């Protein structure tokens, strides 16, 4: 069935609530309003105020109490309203949530999922278009995933909730309204795995979240020029699942990594470093990176200049052939 990514998440959350009564959803405006993006639409109505909890307006409080609920045996799914508002909860996430299992030598599990709509491209005001994934991926003890399409959204959210790891679950907000096929019965591939989403032979383009669509569009455009791009959807940012990337790069000899976040000390740095180390003799060109610039996110009317797009991806692909 074709669903929007947002609706697929909603359905995934609904199924998680149905299948385990320890699952609770919490956050600002998630109840009656159904969240500012309506991802939790209708859930409070159907599951009640104890399963879908409208919280006070404080992110540290949301994550901190979610940890307490998890210690009590619940499985909280927290919504952070926008990427730029997760930072007040940073201490609870990196010092508490990420480390509890380690510090307790495995005694205390805190299966908390933190949902964050992330990325730009929706014409929003400041703090509403951030890509904070590097901050979490660098943090040992957290797992970080990003979905890019409705089918993954539906399945990945359920997998994140049913596992015991604390998971930062990144949702490509500008793709909430894009439709795609969801197979409700097919059993999904494992959560922490990458996937080749388009096969190709000349160059490997690696992306995640909102940029997967961009990479696929670039591949389509390039095909018209007779250039064959393989596109890999990372899906998991921590830990990385680089097997498919290495395999691909060893075939293509060229690699471009795409994300919206600034480049300095980012996921693309890590990919470039690891792909180079593992495919040193296969690379015909250095791994190139197409990313946001190392500036704060700019005003909406100029965000298209900041965000990687089809042209910038193709330009980098071209440059890998210039070496």
């Amino acid at each position, binding site marked *: 069935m074709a669903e929007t990514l947002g609706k697929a998440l909603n359905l995934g959350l609904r199924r998680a609530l149905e299948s385990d009564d320890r699952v609770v959803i919490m956050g*600002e*405006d998630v*109840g*009656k*309003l*159904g969240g*500012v993006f309506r991802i939790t639409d209708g859930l409070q109505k159907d599951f009640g105020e104890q399963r879908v909890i*409208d*919280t*006070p*307006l*404080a992110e*540290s*409080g949301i994550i901190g109490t979610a940890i307490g609920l998890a210690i009590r045996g619940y499985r909280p799914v927290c919504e952070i309203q926008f990427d*730029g*508002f997760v*930072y*007040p909860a940073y201490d609870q996430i990196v010092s508490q949530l990420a480390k509890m299992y380690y510090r307790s030598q495995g005694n205390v599990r805190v299966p908390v999922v933190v949902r964050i709509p992330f990325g730009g491209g929706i*014409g*929003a*005001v*400041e*703090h509403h278009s951030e890509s904070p994934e590097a901050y979490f991926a660098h943090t040992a003890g957290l797992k970080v995933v990003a979905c890019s399409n409705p089918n993954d959204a539906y399945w990945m959210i359920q997998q994140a909730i049913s596992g015991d790891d604390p998971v930062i679950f990144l949702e490509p907000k500008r793709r909430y309204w894009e439709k795609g096929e969801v197979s409700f019965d097919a059993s999904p591939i494992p959560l922490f795995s990458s996937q080749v989403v388009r096969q190709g032979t000349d160059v490997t383009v690696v992306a995640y979240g909102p940029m997967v669509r961009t990479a696929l569009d670039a591949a389509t455009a390039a095909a018209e020029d007779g250039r064959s791009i393989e596109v890999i959807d990372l899906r998991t940012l921590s830990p990385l699942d680089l097997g498919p990337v290495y395999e691909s790069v060893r075939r293509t000899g060229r690699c471009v990594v795409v994300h919206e976040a600034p480049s*300095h000390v980012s996921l693309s740095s890590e990919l470039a470093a690891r792909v180079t180390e593992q495919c040193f003799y296969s690379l015909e060109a250095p791994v190139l990176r197409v990313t946001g*610039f*190392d*500036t*704060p996110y*700019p*005003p*909406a*009317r*100029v*965000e298209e*200049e*900041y965000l990687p797009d089809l*042209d*910038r991806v193709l*330009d980098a692909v071209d440059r890998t052939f210039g070496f």
Partner: protein
Amino acid sequence: MTNGDRIPPDPEFVQLLDPDGERVEHPDYSVEFTPDEYRGLYRDLVIIRKLDAEATALQRQGELGIWASLLGQEAAQVGAGRALRPQDMAFPTYREHGILHCRGIDPIMPLGLFRGVDQGAWDSQKHKVHMYTIVIGAQTLHATGYAMGITMDGKVGTEDGEAVIAFFGDGATAQGDVNESFVWASVFNAPVVFFCQNNQYAISEPLERQTRVPLFKRASGFGFPGIRVDGNDVLATYAVTKQALDNARLGQGPTMVEAYTYRMGAHTTSDDPTRYRAGSEVEAWRDKDPIKRMRIFLTKAGIADDDFFTQVDDDAAKQAVELRERVLALPDPGPLSIFDNVYPGGSPLLDEQRAQQERYLASFEGGH
């Protein structure tokens, strides 16, 4: 849950002008305005409401990305804004368009942020209004630090001392930062007024999600006075805020003012309040409208007549048209502007990125 009057105005609720336009007395607060000043306040209220409506219309027509309307909160803002003295400094949220108006800031200024051409660009030192802060509560600490600086500069303790006002909403009272700012202000006896516009909602969350007692009571636990005022009463808000600011400038430390009001519109133009509150609640508050009561009062007191009211409406309408034209004419920022003003000291890394991007953009012009 809906949010009419369930957390009722306290006995301590300060009011000088009731919803029916009657002047009421209060043992501790009063105002003495000249007729001109009274008319000026009315004018402020009408103009900011009109400009706000124009901005909402602009958003509907796609000319703004989003708009945070102050509808219903005009008296709270004009009362506070006019209570400020020139030397005072204000730290707003994203909804204090009325404060900007009172500080003489060109009404085009806040629209840049909402149109997406800038992120708040007025001269904050000159107008003594810091830029808008969207991250809930963060500005209350900035305000407190600034106020500590006033003390360190020796600009406190006299009648013409300086004071600071920090704006925030009912929802913000839950944030750690706001509570930390209370700690700091109290411990350092900082000359700051915490002005909370309790408009009963934080987006869809009613007041009960943030507190189970009236918000102004929060202050006493931190060791400074809190007071609730009728935020739809511009006279009372003025009187209470002025006294709080004067106390601050005289060295008597912080005060929290809770302006009890109501957000008549949506949270922002992206919001749909019908999902979470009853129309009847909104109607009940319409009776408490801040402009209506001023108009009745001015009329009854013979301070203003219909000619005046018509004139004000006309002026407001004219300003709205002007504003609209200027918004439409706002230039988009240039593509390389994204690299401007990242670091006062510059950055070679960024210079490189800018140069690269410049070359990249130029490659299109030559026919890529």
